[in-house]
């Protein structure tokens, strides 16, 4: 047994961390939050130059083929810096769907462009105002045309191509649709930096992703893999929120002493740390399962997803508490972590859904 990342993987992580620290600071983030930009083009291009988008994509399709362990660490850094780029939708969702389900021709056409960052992808599922079940999907795909409305598509504002869950003659399927001629409209969400859009498909040209398949289970398989990568983003965010809380608690004084000496706050932060450690260890295990396509993946992914969601939500929430009134200002970054944690908690289906998946994946005699 060796339960750690390799030195090579950690070195790459460190490079990404330094790049984001130097290039994805407050101003860059705020230009997306408050300005006209929907994402940070300079950060996106910088990541491309480092080959980050192609980390886990085979070299035959233009990737770096450095594996999923390395991608997990990249995700952790992107999460820690709240990087305002369409990385998660493009890489964890679109690339995974195309790699898993796409035909050879589709892979050859799309993966190299996604790997280089030249093209941005996403996955479009949600249509109605509740956690989606198969019956909610009414977007149709027939005779090469897509029709329907996807209500909230992460990074739908800037995506060039979407994998779309749609109804076909024999049930649900994943469909590949270039987004050049569709109607898209920005939709406000709890995290304005996720580029969410409502996309209307009206006789939009599209093609079936790969051969005939069961779209719901194909999507679930993508979700299981993406859950691990999102969990690493959540972990990165949780860790940064805890760091902020600890840093502030050491410097802010009240009643003649640092607020970090009050036991109520110390114990709150100890609990944040515990949640973080549990999530981290579960994430490590899930990373191994993802890299090795292990039988344990479904359970490991759900476990990582549940505990990373809990950890990020707890840490971002209590980070605000530690900051007092300052934590509730637009100016301070606390709310950005709070927003991101609550958006990411929903992006593959909410916590309850993943709790249910976890229990379904438990072996009979646990």
């Amino acid at each position, binding site marked *: 047994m060796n339960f750690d990342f390799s030195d090579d993987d950690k070195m790459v992580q460190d490079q990404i961390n330094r790049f984001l620290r130097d290039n994805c600071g407050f101003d860059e983030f705020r230009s997306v939050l408050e300005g006209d930009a929907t994402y940070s083009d300079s950060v996106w291009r910088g990541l491309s130059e480092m080959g980050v988008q192609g980390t886990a994509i085979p070299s035959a399709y233009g990737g770096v083929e450095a594996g999923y362990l390395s991608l997990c660490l990249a995700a952790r850094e992107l999460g820690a810096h709240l990087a305002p780029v369409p990385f998660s939708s493009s890489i964890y969702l679109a690339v995974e769907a195309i790699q898993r389900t796409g035909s050879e021709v589709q892979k050859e056409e799309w993966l190299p462009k996604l790997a280089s960052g030249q093209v941005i992808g996403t996955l479009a599922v949600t249509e109605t105002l509740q956690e989606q079940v198969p019956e909610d999907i009414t977007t149709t795909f027939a005779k090469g045309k897509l029709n329907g409305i996807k209500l909230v598509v992460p990074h739908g504002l800037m995506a060039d191509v979407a994998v779309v869950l749609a109804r076909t003659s024999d049930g649900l399927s994943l469909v590949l649709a270039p987004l050049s001629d569709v109607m898209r409209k920005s939709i406000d969400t709890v995290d304005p930096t996720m580029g969410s859009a409502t996309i209307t498909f009206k006789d939009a040209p599209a093609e079936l992703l790969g051969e005939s398949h069961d779209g719901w289970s194909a999507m679930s398989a993508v979700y299981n893999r993406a859950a691990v990568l999102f969990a690493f983003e959540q972990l990165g965010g949780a860790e940064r929120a805890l760091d902020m809380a600890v840093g502030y608690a050491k410097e802010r004084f009240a009643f003649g002493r640092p607020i970090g000496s009050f036991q109520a706050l110390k114990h709150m932060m100890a609990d944040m740390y515990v949640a973080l450690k549990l999530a981290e260890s579960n994430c490590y295990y899930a990373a*191994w399962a993802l890299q090795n396509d292990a039988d344990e993946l479904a359970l490991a992914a759900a476990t990582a997803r549940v505990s990373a969601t809990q950890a990020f939500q707890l840490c971002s929430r209590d980070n605000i508490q530690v900051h007092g009134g300052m934590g509730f200002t637009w100016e301070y970054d606390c709310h950005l972590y709070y927003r991101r944690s609550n958006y990411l908690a929903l992006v593959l289906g909410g916590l309850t859904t*993943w709790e249910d998946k976890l229990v379904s994946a438990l072996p009979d005699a*646990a």
Partner: protein
Amino acid sequence: MEFNDTKEEAAFRGEIRTWIDNNAPDYLFEPLSTSGFGSIQLDGFDPMAEAKQWQKTKAEAGWACLQWPKDYGGQGASPIESVIWNQEEGVYGQLSRMFIIGQGMCAPTMMTFASEDQKQRYLPKLASGEEVWCQLFSEPHSGSDLAGLRTRAEKDGDDWVINGQKIWTSGAQHSEFGILITRTDPEVPKHRGLTMFFLDMKSAGVDIRPIKQANGDSGFNEVYFDNVRIPDAQRLGGVGEGWKVSLTTLMNERLAIGGSITTGFPEIKELVDQLRIASGTAINDPAVRSKLADWYAKSSGLKNTAARAISALSKGEVPGPENSIGKLVAGGMMQDIAKFSLDLQGLSGAIVDPEIAAGSARLQAMLMRSPAVRIEGGTDQILRNIISERVLGLPEDMRADKGMPFNKIPVGN
């Protein structure tokens, strides 16, 4: 990153499996599997006698305290090998855990601070279960605030004379030896006036009185010292350096306790797989699933955290205070799981008779034993203090007694 056994590890596991199949006391399999939490019940067999027999069998075949050096009764095995042993030992590990205080806490202290002769004399018998050890730290007036202890040791020739009282001493009634922390200088600040010893529990003047616990067991004791003489040669570490010595013990305590984590998850899973509630089989109920998922995520998080500690150990790194999270998470979780399990069963959940209650009343036993998990070996609050101060680097608690000579510190009742 790799979780599966290497070829050598798989071979080692196979060897253990075969040996256990051939040598374990299989007549105890059933009672050990259904035994409650806290003290074990073995259908009329004496648990301590059975535990000693099993430990001896293991020692003779070279399976006791695997990771200890060969000279002291172990095999010099790697951390991974001893983990594989623990995994394969399964239910019989409950017998071995009766020696955990001695082997897990007293032994590391002896290995670090005792003389070579003493190590050769005491450690092999501690490994083989022939001699049992206990930890004499807590006192009526000092548990969390261990450094506030009052038991006095005064030098008299080549001996020290001990007077005072310890309390909550687990297993003192079965013990041949114990490690004892005392106050040798009451005129300096509390952490500086302490000295550690080990002693023969049969020494004249030692009086052991069992305490009946809240769950009805009697695992711990009061131990009184009335002019007990300990040779200076049995001092561990320097005079006045007992605090530093105790930290060795306490760090290992957290590891020893954190190492074999019981969380209650398998028990509740087994219950809800079968139990019928208003909405159908309990496991299909959304509220049950939600809690189950949370508990699984926690218990798997602990398991994976322990695996990371082992992985660090095997690379020669020292696992840090972050291992405090094991007991902190598991204690509260056991209590929650027990409460919820009983709740699902309505009034029948109150039945503690193992012949009648679901799951041999293990969950009821857990309800009654789990409060102790949140106290023994550092309370939940002390563990949070440790995490916030030593891991997160937050400021120390304000201490009313800071820098004060011990004998000037205000005391309550």
